[in-house]
């Protein structure tokens, strides 16, 4: 009877999962070259996309009130990673409920084996173990039995098989979409502070684990704060010093039941509750709603969650101030304005009788490289014997936002020029992305030299 009750509650509880909002605090101004983190939200079960958007925008309001701002200098400020879970209009209500539960089981099974594809068989076994009722359950009579009658052995075997392949495929596909989106955001050098709620903690974990596996160089540019943890564990950025990055209400009946159920089915249980919100009889009796419970700043759940979010946000600002990654970029050179000085021309003999030229390879599409030490302000040098400035104007940029820095190298026709300083001294020029000046300062002259630009 106790098992039946748990199952029944799980079906019912999964209906009521909701959202919340978040807030945080900024400590000091952001570095001039660093954009503030984007905000992201991943919804839980039984949420429509409108409800997920609602959560993100309410979160943004709370954030704004605490001095946090979404990046306004970017094409897109914030993101809702929407996962439609179990409210498919083409399904019957019962089937939708079942779909929801199957999804949770499937994800818990995956989480139990740490989303390791090599352990797929183990995950499948765990999945079947959770969805197939025991004989004692099936013999139970009364209202609860009626509510669970669709969970007969035969029906579940059929549904489970369908669900395992169907749900598994759908969720994997959704994870792949999330990973692609994460790459598109983070590979430009941006950062992302994500919030996940309820079942969204499972899907966010899966997406971030996969992302970190595929693109470890970008993993530190995203942080995750979780509320109402359905997941057993918290995804951690490699090397992150934040150990506590989730909040679950001790009165969260939804997570309570899922945790108990998982434990009884040999699945890894949801993380233990670690904060308390008083039972909210009228606002949200389940103790699970994101905005009502986990963003309620008058309770421990809200203050703790906001602090976690704030910590992650601050970390992103601090740790990524000198780390920039950009995606592939194509460009052309504006020869009408690109030139050497003091000669003030592109080619021809300079003041020392040497001939300068621009490498034509610069006109080809260029693969952007990664820069780990970005100079936001540039360098200045003191000429010793000679000083050349190479001022460049790039055009046709495929992604102007991606151009953070341009550096130059000098190749010689004879001996290596003893360059003492080579750096960006003025960029962008007039606010134009991809325009700047490289200054070459050396101690002696050489027969010829060519500047080659590298865009970062």
């Amino acid at each position, binding site marked *: 009877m106790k098992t039946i009750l748990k199952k029944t509650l799980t079906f019912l509880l999964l209906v009521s999962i909701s959202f919340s909002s978040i807030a945080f605090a900024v400590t000091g101004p952001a570095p001039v070259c660093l954009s503030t983190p984007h905000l992201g939200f991943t919804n839980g079960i039984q949420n429509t996309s409108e409800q997920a958007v609602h959560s993100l925008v309410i979160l943004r309001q709370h954030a704004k009130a605490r001095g946090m701002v979404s990046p306004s200098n970017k094409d897109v400020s914030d*993101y809702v990673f929407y996962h439609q879970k179990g409210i498919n209009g083409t399904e019957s209500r019962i089937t939708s409920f079942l779909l929801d539960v199957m999804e949770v089981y499937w994800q818990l099974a995956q989480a139990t084996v740490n989303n390791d594809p090599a352990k797929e068989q183990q995950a499948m076994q765990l999945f079947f173990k959770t969805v197939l009722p025991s004989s004692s359950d099936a013999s139970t009579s009364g209202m609860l039995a009626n509510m669970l009658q669709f969970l007969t052995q035969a029906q579940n075997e059929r549904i489970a098989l369908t669900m395992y392949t169907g749900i598994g495929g759908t969720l994997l596909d959704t994870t792949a979409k999330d990973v692609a989106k994460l790459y598109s955001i983070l590979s430009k050098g941006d950062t992302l502070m994500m919030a996940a709620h309820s079942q969204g903690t499972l899907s966010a974990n899966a997406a971030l684990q996969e992302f970190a596996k595929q693109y470890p160089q970008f993993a530190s540019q995203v942080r995750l704060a979780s509320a109402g943890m359905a997941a057993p564990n918290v995804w951690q950025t490699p090397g992150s010093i934040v150990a506590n990055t989730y909040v679950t209400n001790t009165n969260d009946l939804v997570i309570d039941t899922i945790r108990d159920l998982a434990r009884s089915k040999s699945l890894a249980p949801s993380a233990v509750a670690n904060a308390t919100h008083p039972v909210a009889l009228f606002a949200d009796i389940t103790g699970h709603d994101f905005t009502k419970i986990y963003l309620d700043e008058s309770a421990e759940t809200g203050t703790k969650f906001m602090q976690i979010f704030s910590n992650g946000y601050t970390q992103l600002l601090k740790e990524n101030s000198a780390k920039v990654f950009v995606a592939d970029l194509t460009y052309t050179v504006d020869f009408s304005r690109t030139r050497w000085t003091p000669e003030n021309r592109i080619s021809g003999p300079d003041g020392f009788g040497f001939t300068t030229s621009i490498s034509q390879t610069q006109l080809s599409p260029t693969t952007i490289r990664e820069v780990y030490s970005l100079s936001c302000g540039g360098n200045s040098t003191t000429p010793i014997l000679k000083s050349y400035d190479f001022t460049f104007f790039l055009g046709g940029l495929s992604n102007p936002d991606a151009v953070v820095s341009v550096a130059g190298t000098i190749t010689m026709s004879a001996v290596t020029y003893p360059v003492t300083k080579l750096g960006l001294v003025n960029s962008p020029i007039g606010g134009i992305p991809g325009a700047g000046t490289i200054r070459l300062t050396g101690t002696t002259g050489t027969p010829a030299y060519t500047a080659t630009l590298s865009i970062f």
Partner: protein
Amino acid sequence: MSLIKRSLLIMALCGLSACGGGDTSTTSPPGNTTVEPPIKTTVIYGALSSAEIALIGKDADTNGIRDDVDAWILATFKDSATQTIAKTRAQWLTWAMLRGARNVPVTTSETNKIAAANACWIEKAYSTMGDGLPGANDWEALLFNTHLRAVAYLTWDANSDGIVREIHANPCNDVIGVPTL
């Protein structure tokens, strides 16, 4: 979890008329329980079948918003700016419902436009109502108050699974009127 908690939960959940999360206001919006015969044919969505017109419901002023939804907006939001964006949002949600009824593929562009209308409305309403503003589920309960409407809307929603919504810093700049279907 105590038995009392679980019992309370069951009682609460059994009383729910609709599922889903989101902020919930304490004020229940008015709604119809049946599809009303249309008085006039709205034109902002383009050519519609009789079934689609019936799905929209009674829309006397042909603004694409069911009359009781119009009334709710005027009664709930006091300033004209919020009323205006609330109506635009209602039109977009109705538009989504009609798209769901046709079960056509959902594009990223349309999800962002609908999200922008939602975000803009929240930003305007939040300034006066704070966290007490109606939740998305309140809107949905009002607009999709029949089985047919709910199924159509949820079909649109299901077809948008996995699409990442992009919200700009100033979402009101992205709000436009609904296109024809």
